[in-house]
């Protein structure tokens, strides 16, 4: 099955009022409204600090590929 992944982090799936400021830059403030990636990011930060892991959060633009099933 063909699949696309794109930058939901900046609110591209949401209405115009919630979209992050253009152009999208890595250190831009979070867009308004909810985004589950903010929840995940905060969660990972907490664990990484507590257990002294390095962490990285990637925000790929469009990925096109094939997945089975």
């Amino acid at each position: 099955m063909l699949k696309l992944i794109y930058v939901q982090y900046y609110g591209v799936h949401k209405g115009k009022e919630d979209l992050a400021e253009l152009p999208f830059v890595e250190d831009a403030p979070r867009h308004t409204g909810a985004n589950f990636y903010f929840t995940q990011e905060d969660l990972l930060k907490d664990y990484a600090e507590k257990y002294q892991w390095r962490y990285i959060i990637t925000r790929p633009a469009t990925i096109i590929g094939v997945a089975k099933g």
Partner: protein
Amino acid sequence: MSSSSSSSPRVACIWGANGISGTAMIDLLIEQSSNEWNHIICISRRPFQLDSKDNRIDFISIDILHSTTDEIVTELEKVNGKTITDVFHYTYIEKSNEDELDKVNKILLEKALDACVKISGKTIQSFSLQTGYKVRTRLIFFIVEVNLCTVLWCS
């Protein structure tokens, strides 16, 4: 991340291993020598779907959402997950409701984090989380159609 020859081999743990990104990461890791990566633990709800074959790969098929952290840890113990050094997280469940989307994907990551802490909290050095949004075929057809229309219109 150091990849010098003096560093000891690394152990990867890939959550969401059957997906588009998980598959790509597995392929990338098995291209490297066993001095770099000597064990690759793959986790996915679905059974192994991949064409990649390598004796360093161990596959765990488990429904993270409906399993307890201890059940996940038990599976990780079976494949000697105590030495994991690097975690790659690619799981995602789609929900049309924003609150449900937030809730369900928080649970997925939280269980992965808790399981990682229990099995190998002290050996883990890095945790990688990928963000993204999954769209299936229809959008691609839409894009192709739009491009086609533009081409036709221009000509």
